[in-house]
């Protein structure tokens, strides 16, 4: 085999290797950015929520004033506390993909925290809501809205549903319930259609 051809081939392989290194590094970085975002988000959101909660009513009402960071188009509207697990999560005003990357999102259309009816929130199984795996029947969940008393719920049901065929009822009256949703199984590598739903009733 001629020297030049071998040389050419070696270069091609090296170029491929360099590309792989680049893409691999980018992917890994992007992936690690997710938990970093979740951790960072928790910190910033916690701070913003606390500040907003104690702010005067007029200032509190304007969501634009309560961006956790300048470019954010989401704002915290409540907090969930899991006393037995010693954990708490800030609830954002949207459950879009962008919002869920930062924290737990309230499903628009369901009752607001503290309002009568069914309140629903969703979070990533490999992010904000990984802890749902450890929530048991009978556990207490406390929800604090922006303004108003903290509400105590007790977990009544844990079910797994197929999200392709199941929807949550839109209900703004009747018994006050909280539904928390995340992907199931929690430890899966890739997401499937199954969702874990935790139902809790107001005490």
């Amino acid at each position, binding site marked *: 085999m001629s020297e030049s051809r071998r040389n050419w081939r*070696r270069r091609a*392989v*090296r170029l491929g*290797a360099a*590309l*792989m*290194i*680049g*893409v*691999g*590094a*980018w*992917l*890994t*970085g*992007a*992936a*690690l*950015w*997710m*938990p*970093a*975002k979740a951790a960072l988000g928790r910190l910033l959101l916690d701070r913003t929520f606390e500040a907003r909660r104690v702010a005067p009513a007029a200032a509190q009402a304007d969501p634009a004033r309560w961006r956790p960071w300048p470019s954010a188009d989401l704002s915290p509207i409540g907090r969930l506390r899991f006393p037995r697990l010693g954990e708490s999560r800030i609830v954002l005003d949207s*459950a*879009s*993909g*962008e919002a*869920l*990357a930062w924290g737990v*999102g309230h*499903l*628009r*259309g369901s009752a607001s925290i503290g309002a009568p009816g069914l309140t629903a929130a969703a*979070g*990533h*199984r*490999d*992010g904000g809501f990984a802890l749902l795996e450890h929530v*048991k*029947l009978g556990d207490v969940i406390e929800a604090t809205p922006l303004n108003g008393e903290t509400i105590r719920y007790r977990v009544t049901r*844990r*079910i*797994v*549903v*197929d*999200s392709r*065929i*199941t*929807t949550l*009822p*839109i*209900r703004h*009256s009747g018994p006050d319930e909280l539904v928390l*949703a995340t*992907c199931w199984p929690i430890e*899966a*590598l*890739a*997401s499937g259609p199954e*969702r874990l739903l935790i139902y809790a009733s107001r005490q």
Partner: protein
Amino acid sequence: MIGRRIRTALRRSAAPLVSLSLLAGAIIAPPSAAQAQTPARAADASKLAAEGLVTLEQVNHGALLLKTDKFGWYVPAPALDTSIKADVSGPIARIVVTQKFRNVAKVFVEGKYVFPMPEGAAVDTLKMRVGDRWIEGKIEERKEAKKIYEEAKAEGKVASLVEQERPNMFTTSVANIAPGAVVVVQIEYQETLAPREGAFGLRLPLVVAPRYSPKPTPVQLVKFGPEGWYEAKADPVPDRERITPPVVDPRSEEKGTLRNPVDIVVDIEAGFPLGRIKSLYHGGQVKIEPRGVKAARVTLTGPIKADRDFFLSWRPAKFSDPYAAAFTEERDGESHYVAMLTPPDAAAIGDTRRPREVIFVQDVSGSMGGESITQARAGLEMALKRLSPDDTFNIIIFNDKFAVFEENPVPATPENIARAVESVRALQATGGTEMLPALEVALKDASGAADGRVRQVVFLTDGAVGNERQMLKLISKELGRNRLFTVGIGSAPNSYFMTAAARAGRGAHVFIGDLKEVRERMETLFTKIETPAVVDMTITALKDGRPVANAQISPTPAPDLYAGDPVVATVRLPAGVEADTLRFTGLRGDAKWEMELPLSDARKRPGVSKLWARETIRDLEALRLSPDVTAKDQEKIDADILKTALDFGIVSRLTSLVAVDVKRTRPADEKAVRKDVPLNLPAGWDPEIFFESKEAPVEAGEDAPALLQKTALTRLTAAAKAREAARAAKAAAKAKGLAIPDTGADWMLRGLAGLALLLFGLVLWRVTRRSSAA
């Protein structure tokens, strides 16, 4: 050289580079994963909006939305208004149902509405109004009608199609309704209203209750026949998709929402001085205006929600016993008659009570949840207390499993009754509806005829199943000496199944629609069960006292006649043949029973021939399900049904009405979206049970099995119908609600893939470098 320096660093250790690249990645990486899950990005949004989809935020309260495959986007379903005008003249009613489809979406829509019909209705007319044009529909063989409709749909013309899914369940499809436009579909039918227990009744069913359709058996039979090998697919409900329209979750609606509002006007020309007129389930919402002594008009004070049957009953001021009436129509030289009579009160017949073995079969499936199960419990308790100590009894309960009270029927001693009543009071309703195995066990007659008892099966259910035929087949095959009595429960019972099952089971049926009715209706049932029925009835047409040949009489075979039941017979006489009398003979107890009705003074009435056709088709359909009918016989029967339906212009399983506009409405470059009109959950149904998936609990199974534990019933067998069936039914019955978002960032998967790629690249880089050095 920088390259060389990096290379050196790389050779020393991979770790620093990994961390470096991570840092770089962290800085440049956009949150791409998160964005991909956003319901609709700006670019998509305008496209979706152009397709007529809307998001939750864009919709006012009370609008009807249907989920699409695009997460978070919905298309509004056509809104539907129904008005019903019934003209009752004596015991015959002519009813016009007007369905107004209004397209509230911004795109062309094809609407489909599944609606109920009385099971004896002869549907003969379809008219469609587009703008200010009325278009007459025509009767066609079902396949042909479907083809005509599909062609018109493709050509962009407004078209409507009325099909029979079950004798009491029809669908209207309307193609190419323009955005904002209204298409009116008018359907007319005729029905006989024979008096029962001294009262005339008009039942206008307004909603199809969601049906449970059992899954096909997983076993695939391979059959060998003259055509070669073929697979016998045993789907008990081959048309499951056609009969499962979406159902609206009442909890998601504003209070007082009138979904699918209905307006009703009934004009009664009784033909006798009217006594009491009563609306059974809408008492507070009707206005009754007398029009002289013999007539009245009944109207609603306002539109009502289509979520339960409307039932109007009226009595003569003084009931003449027996009641008899006959009507006739000439058609193409042939004469048709409809004749009805109520036999004299049977209670006068002496006590011929024999000891009985009664098997109660109680439906405790999810559709019975709410008010229905309360009615059923009360009814069953009354029935149990009514038994005599020399009777024996057993109870079978079923949902997607079944359980029996005792292995074998036990004597109705006070202790046994007390124990049974206690179990019955604890019954809860949940789960699927697998009737077949329960009914099979109920019909199994272990003691045989030897013990001299009468064996009666009392079946309490709402009949919300899609496999009616499979059930009817089983009943006619396994009946033996059993007699099957059906008690239809709830606000929208499947009346076709109730009546057809009682007929196939040679028993009788009653309906309970309200808790207040339980006592009265169960009393009626007991009277039927305890008084000897007229059996082996034959109906003969006579001329001058001699039987007329060639008279086609329906029903054939005549059903057994129970106390309070009317006899309705339809007769067709070929041209040139005459008859003056209809004679009914049979046996009641051991005595001969005979009644005659003169035909000579029958009044002329248009539409009588259609009633004959409808009754004949009913007989043929029943015959088709009897056990000894071969595939070839079935073909012949189908041909008869088709011919009768086409000749008389009525809708049947094999014929449909279709109407097509002459003009094109939808431009060729616009698309149409297909949308089913969502139905109301029948009144009294428990949405918690119906909508909320209680399947696959991760912890604590307080579900179906508990049904059996909670009651004191001994468990015999659990039908091995998998969770699958129930889950599929739930899926079919899924309602509008909040979609649960995708909640996995899958960063670990991405990270692992990235790391693998990175490491592989590094190894490759190193290997090629070494070879270059060599």
